């Protein structure tokens, strides 16, 4: 917890490297404002300290951070951000609060989780880069799609080989077009069915291009203009009137200032008039703040752009105004049809999630096969043998598949015998399918009767699956 009796003036003037670990951590939290607990407890004093520090930095051009910025541009901010985190990691006394090693963290942002890969690519990047980008487009493509080649990473004099794992399994063209769009003046809109990896891709693109994926706005029916533009610390606003201190920047403003990518999830869920707030941001790359004077505006630095996502099942993209649509390039992310790729995605993601929770469950090959086959058949309304039946109306995306397997793993870990069986799959599959539309129960029954009953005669695994699913359906009824 930040100490209230820190000597602010001297603190502000000191070089970062000379700070103690605790002070560094305080600085980290203050600067990034990540930890909600500390944010709430940051008082006016600290805010002043922050401003003083900034002033000190701008006046004292010999400051470490400024030197780095002048020398290497935005990417150094990202590197130093990552370096700080590295430094934090080694300090055992801060273990409980360290975002990297803390077991309280459910999910790290991509730029932290894959920081080694990003650093390795950065160190080996010889390709031309658009201004403000952390990596070149070629390296961004490599980061997203993975590579067979290993890259060397040198940290603190030590060199290691780093493999670049694939984050997105799909068409290379799609990734190339996304990258090209983000390097242009147009924003990127990723659309597709739910669960096809739009948000996932958006996060990784932001991590690779800006070194930061957390400039994020979630679109909902209740999203307001403030959440997109800026808002105020109303206590300060009322006490002192409009001022920069009272201004609470939105992720848009932060992204513009820092020259980073802004992520807008489910943009089409926002009311149209709220969506249209983006038009001036995307065209003029300017965000005026009239409350602070007629000439006060925030301009976007090189590297700023927007990635939005929308799913075409709920409300689609038809409700975007023509003016806003024109400022986006649209990329459609299809449902994975290739069974091999689907399997690869599911396996990778589930293993990843199990590692996070330190599960040691082995998922046998036949379980993967069972899940991917039944999902594909239910999604398409057709069995492998060509038999047709009614399609399930629920979203049967890869994301659902991953969730199902992961839920089964959790079930097995805590209630099972440390071994996934068709029983767990059957239990969670029936829930997945019935949750959106109770009528799906009949379609699932049809699948059971027409397809699984035949298959059960020839295969023990399917037999067990058929039996368990039948039980589940009876219970649901």
């Amino acid at each position, binding site marked *: 917890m930040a100490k209230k009796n820190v000597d602010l003036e001297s603190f502000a003037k000191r070089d970062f490297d000379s700070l103690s670990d605790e002070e560094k951590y305080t600085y980290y939290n203050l600067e990034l404002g990540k930890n909600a607990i500390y944010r709430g407890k940051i008082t006016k004093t600290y805010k002043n300290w922050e401003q003083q520090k900034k002033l000190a930095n701008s006046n004292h051009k010999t400051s470490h951070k400024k030197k780095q910025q002048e020398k290497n541009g935005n990417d150094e901010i990202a590197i130093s951000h990552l370096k700080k985190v590295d430094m934090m990691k080694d300090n055992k006394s801060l273990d409980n609060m360290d975002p990297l090693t803390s077991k309280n963290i459910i999910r790290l942002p991509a730029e932290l989780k894959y920081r080694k890969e990003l650093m390795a690519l950065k160190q080996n990047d010889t390709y031309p880069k658009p201004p403000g980008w952390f990596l070149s*487009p*070629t390296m961004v*493509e490599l980061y997203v799609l993975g590579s067979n080649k290993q890259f060397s990473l040198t940290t603190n004099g030590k060199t290691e080989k780093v493999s670049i794992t694939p984050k997105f399994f799909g068409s*290379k*063209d799609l990734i*190339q*077009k996304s*990258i*090209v*769009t983000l*390097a*242009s*003046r*147009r924003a990127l809109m990723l*659309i*597709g069915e739910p669960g096809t990896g739009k948000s996932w891709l958006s996060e990784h693109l932001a991590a690779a291009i800006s070194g930061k994926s957390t400039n994020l706005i979630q679109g909902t029916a209740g999203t307001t203009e403030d959440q997109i533009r800026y808002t105020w610390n109303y206590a300060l606003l009322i006490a002192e009137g409009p001022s920069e201190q009272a201004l609470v920047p939105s992720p848009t403003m932060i992204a513009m200032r820092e020259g980073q990518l802004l992520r807008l999830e489910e943009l089409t869920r926002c009311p149209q008039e709220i969506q249209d707030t983006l038009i001036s941001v995307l065209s003029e790359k300017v965000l005026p703040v009239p409350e602070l004077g007629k000439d006060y505006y925030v301009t976007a630095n090189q590297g700023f752009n927007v990635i939005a996502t929308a799913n*075409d099942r709920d409300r689609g*993209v038809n409700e975007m105004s*023509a003016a806003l*649509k*024109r400022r*986006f*390039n*649209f*990329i*459609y992310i*299809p449902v994975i049809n290739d069974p091999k790729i689907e399997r690869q995605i599911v396996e990778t993601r589930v293993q990843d999630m199990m590692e996070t929770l330190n599960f040691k469950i082995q998922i046998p090959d036949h379980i993967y096969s069972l899940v991917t086959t039944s999902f594909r058949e239910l999604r398409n309304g057709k069995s492998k043998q060509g038999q047709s039946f009614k399609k399930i109306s629920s979203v049967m995306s890869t994301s659902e598949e991953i969730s199902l397997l992961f839920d089964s793993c959790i079930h097995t870990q805590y209630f099972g015998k440390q071994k996934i069986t068709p029983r767990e799959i059957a239990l969670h599959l029936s829930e997945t399918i019935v949750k959106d539309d109770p009528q799906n129960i009949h379609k699932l029954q049809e699948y059971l009767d027409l397809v699984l009953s035949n298959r059960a005669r020839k295969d023990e695994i399917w037999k067990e699956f058929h039996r368990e699913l039948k039980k589940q359906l009876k219970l649901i009824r």
Partner: protein
Amino acid sequence: MAPEIKRIDESKIETLLRLPPIDSTPHGYNIFNIKAAIKQISKDLKIQFKDIESEVKNITKEEICYFPVRHHSIASSYALLRLLSQFQPEIIFLEAPADRESFIQFITDAETHLPIAMVDHFKDDKNLLGLNGILTPDKDIAAKYMAWYPFLEYSPEYIAMLYSVYKKIPIIFIDAPYMNTVEIKTNTLRNLQLGKPNIKSKVKPSSHKPDLKKIEEQELFKQSNFFKKFCEFYSVKDLDDAWDLLFEIGVQFRSWEEYREIMLLYCLSVRETIPKNGSDLDITEFREKYMAAMIKKHLNDKNIKEKEALVVTGGLHSSVLYRTKAIDLNQVKKFQSVTELIPFSFKRLSSLSGYGAGNRAPEFYQKIWDKLILSNEENNQYFTEVVLQYCIDIINNSRFEGDLFSSADSIAAFQSAQMLASLRFRPEPNVTDLFDALVLCCVKGDPEKENIAFKNRIIKTCIGFHLGRLPSSYQQLGLIQDFKQRLAQFEIELIDDPQEFKLDLQKAEDQSLSILFWQIHSLDTGVLQLTEGVGKNIMNVDIYHEFWKLVWNPELNVKLGEKSNLGSTVEEAALTVLKDELMKNRKNSEFCAKSLIQCIRMDLIKQFSDIKSVLDQALTDDRNFFQLTGAFKLLLLIRKILEIQKKGLVPIINQLIKKNFLSICSQIPNVANPPDDRKDQLAKDLKSIVNATITEYKLKLNRTVFEGALNSAYLYSNDGRVSGCLLGARYMIDQIDVQTIKMEIIAMTKNVLEIQLKIGQFIRGLIEMCQAKIIFEREFFKIVISVVENIDWDLFMTVLPGLKSAFSQLSARDFDEILEKIAKYYGLKESEIGTLVEPTEDIKSIVTIWDAKVYEIISKWFNVVENVKKKGK
């Protein structure tokens, strides 16, 4: 043989040969060390790169200059021009079908507009290849084979021919004729089927027709592991992208020696990794042996030194020709195929149009070629310039078609194309980048569903609309000439604007024109459309008039050219088409009847008896009720037509009709329980037959047999509606009376629930078949009322949809009449018809109560409104 110079455009070849020196300043076009890449890939595939390199050196050291090309490639043509301006051979050997040098004069004629194609076609009347009956419906029908050899302005073959004519040096076509390659493939497949153990091939024997398309070199590339690895290495999608990367982009910076070396390295690596077991490679090897023999023969005959010879062949051939053992040309069978020149089109040439051959975007590359040859500009980023122009043009055209695009979209698309190229390691954007960029910037949604028209527009623009033209000195194909002459007889000229023709078939001249139009129509040239008349809609028969629309189609000559193997006149070609289609569908009685109509319409009366025989047989063999009834309707129509034309064939048709009728009767029991989607058709067809039975008394159709069939089907049928139709049909032909129907309905009402549920559909079927004849029958009317009154509510709800459908069949007038009948049945007096009915006292009192309640509710609303207003004040 040195071709005589007839009318070559000398300035053209001089311009082509006047190439600027190679720009040797450092540039970005050789940033990829292609040799190093090939080396790396070879290493991954465990190929000895050193062996390949030394092989290339051997080829380049040879006395004969082997020059590898890709068909329709700018880079190949450009490099060839550089070679020709330096080397100046005394003889050129060209990969083109042997012994067709006589066409060179027409191909290189100044009047010729490319693209044109040489077409080799062969009709196997003697069944030399044994594929008659496999490729054709019958052994007596000769299989037809066809191969095209197109030429563009930037085809290296064209460049070679142009040069040879200009320099008056001999040029020899050395490729094995297409039919010989077909023979090899057929033999290989046949050997596989016979299970000959020494033939190891991955091609599985199949009972399906063999694929005998001309083997395109690019197909062999796709089979190569090296090529697949190359695509992975450079992240290129396909051969065209790979080619652009390696050769097309930046061609102006490369010497012919460099081009040849890279080409040979590339092709040898590909060749090394094509699976050896495959009939396609067998054919390639045969062709190479043939080419080697031709080269040897002509060098000897003409006494020309090897070092003065230039051999221009596909890259895969060039890489091995120098060490290929020549075949004995006397052992090679000679097929009497016919070769012709036809005008061609960019669309026909483009692989994107779905055709197998050629260049994916001919117009696009034509623009690059024009810039390459004609441009004097210093900035020579030709691909970039053309892509920019396309971005602007396509967006402009789309705006003209109604899409809401602007210049901003052109700018965005162009920038995206450049960036995509850069990401894909191309120094300049190509067609793939252009397409991707335009779709990215302009399609706002799923590209598989949104704005498909825009995507098609991009493809069409890249392909282009160029049409070729042959010189006036070339004797046009018989078919094209005949086509023009026959139209000219009626003083008809093909023009851009549609011309409409209303033909009165009772007039002799119009009848003649109708015959011609039907013949042209059967050739599917796209210039003629029947807008009204027999054939357009068989039920809407005006057999005295026809309405046609004629409009010039730019592809006309091309299409006629492709059909030239069908006959040398329009009539001959139409007849061939008719015969071929008839044989393919000879078991379908309806199709045979259609062919008969066409035969009459096209005045091919000589075929009448043949078609009649086929139809006769089909009427015996066909077991499909719907096809038989289709044929029946058509035969009735034919009879009407022949009665007008007084051709004396009516008795023959009558015989066929009677036979058809009996066949139909035999099939009626088989359709007693049709699938749901066939019930409507069944009802219509039964009705047609019933009507014909009643009205065509002259035919004296056997009602007894018909009735028997209907009865059998009725007993067998489980479907309510179909049963109703069948019983109704019997009623219509006076085989039963309304009492029988009444008894049937009563029986149904007293039957089990399952039968009762069919009453509604049964009545529907009855009314469908009988219409007004039954609906006003008092007994029927009473029974329907009785059914409605007496069945319970649940059953009524089930029966109701059927009843509703039944009554919806009636015309408005009949419907009103039936309503009146019902009303009268329930006590409406004659005098009350047409007057407003006064409500009863009970109804009046209910209405009063409702009025009061509504008044209360509305008053409350007004009070609320008033209160709000007051508060506001």
